[in-house]
């Protein structure tokens, strides 16, 4: 019998000693060389035993697999394997699979080239976690090769969806049940439009970040590859019914950068990241300047009856952590907040040091040495089981708050892959596992990144064909902008250039 660390080298993906949802698709894997032939036995306290023999690829019968998992829900499955290469050398392996709560059956993500420089072939797909199959929601080949991004559901409710299209047939597309809108959020006040959308639970408001992104490539720091930092970053809230943009002067000022908004599941707080504008020397290179940029993680209270903002609290203070925070995400009960912490800059996805941290928002958990101060009032803990030497970035909780899906580049430091981990009531996460595929060797030859994975409870309300139809819809311009309740006059960007010069 081998130790766990040695077992890792024998199977790919590494599905040993993990916790899995009771409705996940078969965790197919393959046996790494020099071993070829295998026999496998999977059994639990209840139900039949799965037994197979074969070469290289371990592929389970989906029907028997699901039956076994359902029968052993909240229990443990044992896996015993015999491996041999030439018929003489035999290896015995044993590991376990813990079966826990179900996971949302779908997630949507964008498939993109790792450098993000081309949009020749972009797809948003919907992946069925129960069947390990996928459906295309958006294919830019159908829409003159534009760029699609920031697809977001309303708290995993797929009847409410928003996404952006850039370059060709542009717009922010909002789907609310059967109602579809194509909105141009760009105006003379917020010329950059909206990014990073997040739905308020009342499904009438969508918060966006709005900013100019400055991407550049490192000449030497190949590990970080591309750096992106924002300028003119503000938070805006789009009221769909009134066709109005709301904001507050505290979250839309020029002196402070704001980005990555996220509504709490009860809609009482809007979480986002905020950074003071560091001074810039005119001769300063972008590389040096980007190192000065560090974001706090803050939240602002929101009253959805009066559509007014309240007090701002700092959750993660960069002066204490020394690092920049991004992508706040909460469990539905609001107990845990998970976010990324990286050295500097706005965009952590190219930072190998980017790791996931967890904050207990109730403060009820006993604080051992793993907890470190995040700000004056909050403590954070590095998710040791989840993180790797490479980037962990975009993450999201399932609707029952038990499963955290995150993207990681741990395999090759280049391609993002979706991983899943179980977070228990004490905030302790299990060993993450890679998204299962029907073909166990799929990831070895798949040269695209899984970008912005978002859970969904039902199939999305759009398809690639429908998205193509939507792209031909007329665009609605935003009526007005309200800052601190005061209406200010705005012009669509198309007419700004024709206005008389003052």
């Amino acid at each position: 019998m081998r130790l766990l660390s040695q077992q890792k080298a024998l199977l790919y993906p590494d599905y040993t000693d993990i916790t899995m949802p009771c409705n996940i698709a078969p965790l197919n894997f393959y046996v790494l060389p020099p071993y070829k032939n295998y026999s496998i036995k999977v059994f639990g306290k209840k139900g039949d035993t799965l037994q197979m023999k074969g070469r290289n690829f371990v592929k389970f019968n989906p029907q028997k697999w699901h039956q076994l998992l359902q029968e052993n829900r909240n229990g443990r499955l044992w896996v015993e394997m015999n491996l041999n290469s030439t018929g003489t050398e035999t290896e015995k392996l044993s590991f376990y699979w813990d079966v826990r709560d179900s996971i949302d059956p779908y997630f949507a993500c964008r498939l993109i080239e790792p450098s993000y420089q081309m949009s020749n072939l972009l797809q948003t797909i919907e992946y069925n976690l129960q069947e390990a199959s996928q459906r295309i929601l958006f294919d830019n080949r159908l829409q003159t090769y534009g760029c699609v991004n920031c697809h977001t559901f309303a708290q995993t409710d797929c009847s409410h969806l928003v996404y952006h299209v850039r370059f060709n047939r542009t717009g922010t597309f909002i789907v609310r049940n059967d109602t579809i809108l194509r909105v141009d959020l760009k105006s003379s006040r917020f010329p950059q439009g909206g990014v990073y959308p997040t739905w308020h639970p009342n499904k009438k408001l969508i918060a966006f970040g709005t900013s100019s992104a400055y991407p550049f490539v490192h000449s030497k720091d190949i590990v970080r590859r591309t750096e992106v930092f924002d300028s003119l970053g503000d938070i805006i809230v789009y009221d769909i019914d009134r066709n109005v943009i709301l904001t507050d002067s505290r979250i839309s000022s020029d002196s402070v950068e704001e980005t990555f908004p996220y509504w709490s599941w009860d809609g009482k707080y809007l979480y986002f990241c905020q950074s003071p504008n560091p001074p810039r020397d005119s001769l300063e290179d972008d590389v040096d300047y980007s190192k000065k940029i560090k974001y706090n993680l803050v939240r602002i209270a929101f009253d959805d009856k009066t559509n007014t903002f309240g007090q701002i609290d700092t959750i993660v203070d960069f002066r204490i952590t020394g690092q920049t925070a991004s992508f706040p995400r909460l469990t539905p009960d609001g107990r845990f907040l998970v976010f990324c912490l990286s050295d500097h800059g706005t965009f952590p996805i190219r930072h190998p040091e980017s790791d996931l941290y967890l904050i207990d928002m109730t403060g009820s958990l006993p604080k051992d040495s793993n907890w470190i101060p995040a700000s004056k009032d909050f403590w954070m803990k590095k998710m040791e089981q989840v993180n790797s030497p490479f980037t962990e970035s975009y993450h999201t909780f399932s609707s029952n708050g038990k499963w955290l899906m995150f993207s990681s580049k741990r395999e090759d430091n280049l391609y993002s892959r979706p991983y899943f981990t179980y977070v228990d009531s004490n905030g302790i996460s299990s060993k993450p596992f890679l998204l299962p595929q029907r073909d166990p060797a799929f990831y070895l030859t798949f040269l695209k990144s899984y970008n912005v994975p978002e859970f969904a409870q039902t199939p999305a309300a759009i398809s690639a064909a429908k998205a193509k139809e939507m792209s031909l819809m007329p665009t609605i311009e935003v009526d007005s902008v309200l800052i601190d309740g005061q209406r200010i006059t705005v012009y669509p960007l198309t007419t700004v250039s024709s206005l008389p010069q003052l």
Partner: protein
Amino acid sequence: MQRFKKPEFWAYPILMVGLWAFFAFAMPDVLEFWEKNQLFRFSSDYWHFFDHEPFGTLIYVHTFLIQFSYYPWLGAIVYALLFTLTAWLFNRCVATNGNRRLLPGLLSVALLLPTSANFGLLVLLVVFLAVVGAHCWIYWKNRILRYSCQVIVLAGLTYLVREYMVWILPFYMCLDWGRTRQNGQKFNPLFLLIPLGGTMLAWGLEAWFCAPYEFISSKSPFKFTGNAFSPSSNIPFNYFRPKKIVFVCMEIATFFSLAGVFYPFFKKKLDWIGGLFLIGGVLWITPIQVKSIADFQQVDRLCRNYQWENALRKLDSQWEKFPVITSLSDFTNTHRLFFGHTKIALLATRKATNKLFTYPQPAFPLLFPLAMNNRAECFVLPSYYTFVGEFSESLHLNYDLITCHCISATILNATIISSLIVDDTLPAFKLTHFLEKSLFYRHQASVYKDSFQRNNLPAIKRGKQMLPFYDYAVASYIPDKNAVKQHMQQQGNPYFYEYFISLCLLDKNTKTIVDEHSNIKKFYQKGKPFFAPYHIQEAILASFNYSPSRYLYPQKIEGISSDVWNDYWLFIIDNQSYFNGSTTFSELQKKWGHTYWFYDCYLTMVDMESKTSQSIN
């Protein structure tokens, strides 16, 4: 012994040997070109890349066959064998029907071969499949089976060959016609609905099942104006697509060969007109298409083998037809392709500054202004960045290219080498997996894996010497000039300084040129007296137009030859004449267009073009 005396016995072997010799000796570059732009792999993932798309199966078979051109003599065997088999089967088809008038029409399809069509061998495969189907149908005795077989075969062919049905369908109809006539049966026009129905059936089924890819199924199989399946990932090189006139010639050839078949209706034998158009089409194709592909491949090979002078000599012939200065919009697609190689070769031979306007130079101040709109340009762009030591950018492009445009052997090798240079070994290791699955590049994978340990590849050693000392931002695909200046101080990468000075010249930044005078001297001085490259001398003199020092003693500036001084004063006089109206702009351009002064004075090529057109008008 009797059969040895029959000409048919010898005809096909002779044809095959002749074709082999033709492909192996006259077109090895063309075969190499197609081979370098794919990487067939014996793995399920490679098959899955094609299996869900119409036309994909055929492309899969095509790439399987094209991989043998790794050795051109072996690739030539594949071409010759397939061609000979097609000819033999075709001859049997038409001989049975007693109608050889189809020959020009069918040959017109066959001759859109590697010389021309964007998929090369693919066209031959299509013809081969069509003829195999026809052959089976003709020799099938049972009538009902034959007709139903025809529907199925044509439906399958429609799925596989897409737009080529525009030729195959008439061919099948003619076979029906010829067969009924030969058997003395009365021809029933309704019978034509059978092959048509087969095609429409496949099209309809595809439209039903291929959603959401309606852009594929919505394309008619009868419309031959472009690829029915047109995602960029599967179009190797649009540049080498034959012009429309070639297709028109071939379609006319087909039409008249059909007219020959329907002779009783036309009353006159018109199939000879088809033959004429066939010859015309071939004559049109061969010189243009073959030469373009072969030239590109030769230049690319020379550059990749660091034979820069030879590459420049080869490139010179490409630019002969161009005026001294031109705008990017004037570039033909083929010349855009050679532009990248020209710039690389100029940098490598350290002639970029000296020959700034010898080759076409677009308006904006970029030495390498190719957009990444298609694979041809993407093919060259990362190589360029790699050459000047900008591995970071080259890697970014390559990693995107791999997925956007399929994996080609060239791009994959370049990506692995760039990754190894910057010690990004994990992705490099991942990519060697693809090489291991190929037939002819397996050894290359082991070489790379060995270099993980020993660091013994010359290309990697050279690259490591050119890595920048410190980290700076590379924006908009073009290195910042200040960064380049730092970069150039490194030993082992003189190209960067050449690049830097070229950028300054193109940017019309004469101040930088003057400030750089001591560096220029250090870099270019090979003996005494020192003379800077011609255009740098021009730039230094041009700078006096904007500086009070023009009234001082510029003759004392080191590095300016008396010839340049004399030319400068002549240019000033002629330029004055132009402003006085005694000289036209085109005359001024003709005389001074190759100088930096002219370029400096007349801002952008767009301005210059408008002035040229004004002076012409």
